[in-house]
């Protein structure tokens, strides 16, 4: 296909993916369905007369239509400010676990049953839903610039939801784990962690309406990190919509705050040797002790912004998985917030009055470009005199992520934990968050 194209265009990139995924689903604590998803897709980018064209298809037998569609779109495309990836030496990144590939349906069903049994032993009244999924994918990318690569990856994920329903109070608690390695998803531990959260939820408490410190759990830290995922993108900086524009090399966050983007973490769901444009992934500090060090780039944005691709051109969304249909865009790989010195218990015991926030509703709904968040606390707790007083309801937290991480960061926990499969964070204690409750 590339040979055919070479005569017609200045540059081309063919991206192909074949995957086989097996999701299993439990509803009301019982097995409901198993599914086998086989996908194949091809995406073609071309540069003709200096202009960029794009098309995708699921029909791998018909390269001609794909080429025609891409050529048609290149007639009107913008000038391409870059060239496709050249041959490069990749970092060693572990993405494939044969144990995931070999994992049998029966074993997945058993894991689901064990999770259900464990949670039922804590409380048989709970409505439990479990999803397990394993996937094997084969990706290939070839460019006219000489890049040629093939990668096999595996993926395993477990998610659990428990619902407790009473008149006037519905509680939903969620937990998950995801990795490219089977070993790193411990289903027992996921069940235990869910039960711990449920125990904290046994009593209700009503916080006052005022500003107070909030202790974000690693999972809750997504509230603070989501605006940064937009603001640290080279695209937002180039467009001028990022508050961090012009702040490279400046201290824009508290001195304790260090954030690393790393596409090479072994077996992390977002790890790979190359991004979806064939550029090697890398590990870089984005914020180092409060100082802005690096923005993230794909080839196209790097081209217009006179920067270099950081290997962050992916066909996924900020919070969603990869889809070959999307043109590549700037997406963070695994983020790690550096830990501090205190344990979760120490941070908690030092809290005279405040909230713990673990899960929220309405993520990304407000003006996240400017860093504003305003969320309903789905799972959170009121703390008084260093002790968890009870779960909060009908409660909103609001603030500005940039402001708070610059001026109100008062504590970082010593233990870093995975959340949502794409970042690792310690508990983060922030003062001065607006809390409104009824």
């Amino acid at each position, binding site marked *: 296909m590339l040979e055919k194209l070479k005569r017609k265009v200045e540059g081309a990139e063919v991206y192909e993916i074949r995957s086989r995924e097996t999701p299993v689903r439990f*509803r*009301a*604590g*019982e*097995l*409901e*369905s*198993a599914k*086998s*998803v*086989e*996908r*194949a897709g091809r995406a073609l980018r071309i540069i003709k007369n200096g202009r960029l*064209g*794009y*098309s*995708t*298809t*699921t029909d791998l037998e018909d390269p001609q239509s794909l080429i025609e569609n891409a050529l048609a*779109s290149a007639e*009107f495309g*913008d000038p391409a400010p870059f060239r496709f990836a050249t041959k490069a030496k990749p970092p060693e990144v572990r993405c494939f676990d044969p144990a995931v590939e070999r994992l049998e349906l*029966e074993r997945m069903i058993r894991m689901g049953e064990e999770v259900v049994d464990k949670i039922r032993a804590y409380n048989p*009244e709970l*409505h439990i839903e479990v999803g397990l999924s394993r996937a094997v994918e084969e990706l290939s990318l070839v460019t006219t610039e000489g890049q040629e690569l093939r990668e096999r990856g595996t993926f395993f994920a477990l998610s659990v939801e428990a*619902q407790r*329903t009473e*008149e*006037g109070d*519905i509680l*939903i608690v969620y937990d998950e784990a995801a990795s490219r390695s089977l070993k790193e998803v411990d289903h027992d531990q996921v069940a235990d962690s869910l039960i711990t959260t449920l125990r904290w939820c046994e009593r209700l408490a009503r916080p006052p*309406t005022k*500003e107070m410190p909030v202790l974000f759990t690693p999972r809750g830290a997504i509230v603070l990190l989501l605006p940064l995922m937009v603001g640290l993108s080279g*695209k937002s900086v180039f467009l*001028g*919509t990022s*508050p961090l524009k012009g702040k490279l090399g400046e201290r824009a966050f508290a001195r304790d705050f260090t954030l690393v983007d790393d596409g090479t973490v072994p077996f992390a769901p977002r790890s790979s040797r190359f991004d979806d444009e064939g550029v090697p992934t890398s590990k870089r500090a984005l914020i180092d002790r409060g100082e802005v060090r690096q923005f993230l780039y794909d080839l196209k944005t790097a081209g217009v912004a006179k920067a270099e691709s950081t290997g962050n051109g992916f066909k996924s969304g900020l919070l969603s998985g990869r889809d070959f249909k999307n*043109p590549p865009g700037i997406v963070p790989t695994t983020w790690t917030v550096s830990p501090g010195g205190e344990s979760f218990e120490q941070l908690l015991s030092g809290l005279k009055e405040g909230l713990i926030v673990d899960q929220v*509703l*309405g993520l*990304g*709904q*407000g*003006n996240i*470009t*400017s860093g*504003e968040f305003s*969320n*309903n606390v*789905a799972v959170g707790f009121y703390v008084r005199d260093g002790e968890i007083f009870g779960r909060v*309801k*009908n409660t*909103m*937290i*609001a*603030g500005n992520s940039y402001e708070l991480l610059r001026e109100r960061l008062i504590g970082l926990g010593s233990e870093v934990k995975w959340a949502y499969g794409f970042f690792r964070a310690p508990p983060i204690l922030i003062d001065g968050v*607006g809390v*409104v*409750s*009824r």
Partner: protein
Amino acid sequence: MKELQSAIRAALASSRADYTEIRLEREWRTQVFFQRENLENIESSTEVGGIIRALVDGGWGIVVFNSLDELEKKIEEAYRTAKAVSAKVGEKSVLAPTEPVEDEVRVQLKKDFRQVSLAKKKELIERYNRLMLSVPKVVATATRYTDSFKEWLFANSEGTFIFEERPDITLFLMATAREDGNIQQAFESFGEAQGFELVEGLEQKAEETAKRAVALLSAKPVKGGQYTVILDQELAGVFIHEAFGHLCEADFTYKNERMRELLQPGREFGVKELNVIEDGYLPGRRGNYRYDDEGVPRRRIYLIKSGVLQGLMHSRETAAKLGALPTGNARAISYRFEPIVRMRNTYIDKGSHTFAEMIRGIDHGIYAKSAFGGQTELEQFTFSAAYAYEIEHGEVGEMLRDVVLTGNVFATLKNIDMIGDDLKINGSSGGCGKGGQAPLGVTDGAPHVRIQNVIIGGRA
């Protein structure tokens, strides 16, 4: 795709399962996407795929594929998977009976977007984009056009065989204005099952959008607290979809006895004036097609009538379990997914109050307009207004920003005390998300609605 008819019927006849269905889709789509002055993407693509569901002894086996060859082999795989599940299944899945349907639905588009050249699409989108960029203080834009034409085919082992054409067209306009560290965004969004005419002649909307982003720069951030709130038609539509609609999707309820007790038909949910309708099929509106993804024709149902809960939205499976009739609400975003219970057009029916009557008597409140987004977790919901105004002594006052509303749906529906007479149904470029399936095209709507004691997040 209809050429596959005999292959599909033969494959279904070969199935060893208790029930088998095949759903195939072939899609043609284009996209034009500008960000600031850059054409981020211009694309014309195709996609083909299918899904087979087999039910064996109450257990489901599902197979998804891109190649439409060897359907018999795929049915056999679905059967074997279902068989493995059935050995472990607890409560058996059962489908409510429906009449087999044979039908062919073709659409007539006023201005078929498949006949409009990419050049013409680009020219129009670029014009809107330029208009927004030309407004002072607007630093960035996002202008996205998408169209999609799907051939959809559904057949099952009960004799149903339906071919339907499903068009979809959307336009999203967003402007970002900036003044130092103050960054504000405004948007307009359109989406329908119509032709290219939907996205033409929107120059004024583009200008309004850009000007609103600039106006938001000097809007006051809202002060958190409890307020009397008037929702405009768009926001009230999102509210009824998010807060109440999802709760009435029977798959949250059918295997959950406690939820069922909370959602008994006959339960009082609001004032007498409150009527909530899930309308069957509004041709031309987004996500509105004649059949759902189980081949069931859509029905018009009342969720709430005169303040009282009437019933829920169903798939064949939830209907069987709860002894109800299927309502045609089993929907999937594409061939990659099995159908789950979803809305299509959910709205609060019109009441009797004028806007003037609603605002009169509000001493200190908020007029919240247009929806940025929303999320629900059964009884708890949250949704954000794109912009808002203060209400002071019965009059609309200064512009506000960062208005996010939250609450408990049972309490909040009871706090609706006035319903306007100006019903409007909205289609948008976004969509609804549930169970990993997003975005699904839906419409929602309402007249202006007044609610007492709404929690608004913000600095205290």
